[in-house]
């Protein structure tokens, strides 16, 4: 996820205030909208992302990078070893971000190696990408894209 929870909530409040409120005419509905803003502005500083997501991502990424390092050996894999060693042990969001950057660096390294040399390490990283993609999607709710695009409720 690229946006911090605070940034998301700030954006929601701005939109409600600037784009939605002016179009709402009924006094009750406007009152409810102000109440929503009141809830959101007080909620903003009380929420934190669940660290469990970052912890599982970091564990999986670290494991994948270690396997890739084993496959490449200490010489070819030196940049991976360095990135693993330099990744902070916490807090979880920072560790996950550092390991994500290490994965990006690992792919850049593998792109420079002969395909057959890189293949076992690439397989280890691919396994993590697949698992992480599934983890990320599993936490998402059904999309409201139809309603967002048309402004019309399904139900």
């Amino acid at each position, binding site marked *: 996820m*690229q946006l911090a929870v605070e940034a998301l909530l700030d*954006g929601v409040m701005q939109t409600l205030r600037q784009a939605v409120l002016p179009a709402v005419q009924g006094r009750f509905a406007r009152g409810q909208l102000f109440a929503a803003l009141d809830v959101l502005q007080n909620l903003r500083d009380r929420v934190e992302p669940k660290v469990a997501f970052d912890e599982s991502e970091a564990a999986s990424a670290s494991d994948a990078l270690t396997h890739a390092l084993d496959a490449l050996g200490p010489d070819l894999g030196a940049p991976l070893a360095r990135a693993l060693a330099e990744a902070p042990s916490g807090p979880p969001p920072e560790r996950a971000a550092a390991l994500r950057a290490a994965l990006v660096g690992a*792919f850049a390294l593998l792109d420079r190696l002969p395909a057959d040399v890189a293949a076992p390490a690439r397989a280890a990283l691919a*396994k993590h990408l*697949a698992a992480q993609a599934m983890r990320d999607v599993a936490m998402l709710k059904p999309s409201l*894209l139809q309603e967002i*695009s048309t402004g019309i409720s*399904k139900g």
Partner: protein
Amino acid sequence: MDDHALVARLEKYVRARLPGEHAPRVVALERSTEGFSQETFIFDVETSAGRRAFVLKREPLAGLLEPYDLEPEFRVLHALSSDPLPSPPTPWLERDPIVLERPFYVMERLPGDVPIPAPGPDGSGPFDDAERATLAPEVIGALARLHTIDWRAYGLDFLGDPGPGRAAATRELQRWEARIDATGLPLDPPLAEALGWLRTHVPETPDVTLVHGDYRLGNFLVTRTPGAARLTGVLDWEMVHLGDPLEDVAWCISPLWRGGTSFASGLVPPDDFVARWVEASGIASDDARLHFYGVLAIVKMAAIMLTGLRAFRDGRTHDLRMAIFDHQLPYLYLLLGMMRGWLGGF
């Protein structure tokens, strides 16, 4: 500027461009919810001969394809106004921000609606069988027409001929990599993997054609009658350029635009789409090139989403539609994994 001021300024602008009309009035101005990129307004002009329907596209303050330049798409649409291709006649471009604060162009509003690439309320696709049977040949035929247009004869050289060999694919890859870089957001590992693969698999383009750049379900204007659907317009030419026609084909058949079906743009199986486009255009397809542009399609979409997310994070837009990309990206990476082979199922 509120909508009243917008109407007043637009009316003044329109009056200067319809000199034969006595005091034409701008009415029924409405902001459109469709289109995630440019600001879109629909409006009518009341004239002595009746109402004329228009669409106005204005550069947004921030958006998915920033930095914006409306001129290339306007010039293409203006040039194609006389072509049988169903594109909207586009009479006016205004660069002077004094008129409506930002550059805009005006096109005539064609009949029809824009089915969007999302499953319907009951989970069904955007078209029934009869509609698909009538609409698919028109969509495929229009794409084939677009790719066989003599772009030099239409004066579209200004779009920049990439030249022979790998130049077309290289330019597109670099264009989208640059957009990703410009967001300044950390590169996600699935994107890094895909970009690495794309860089080492850049294909040659045998023949440079006009490329719409965003030809897909969601940019088709469609009318429906019982048992039939017709293509009345091809919209959103913001990404128009000269390049490889398979870029358009791959984009149109991409899993991104299947609207809850297994069909390319909700119309026909992807392989059928390609075969029928080959037949209609007389241009050969190539599996490796098509796959390259298929992967690039997902990368393009990621670049667009990241651009919107960055604008939202910076507070340059409060359009919450940009924020939803944060939880659309994982779906995108799922598709990328399937196309790249690190996730089974594609």
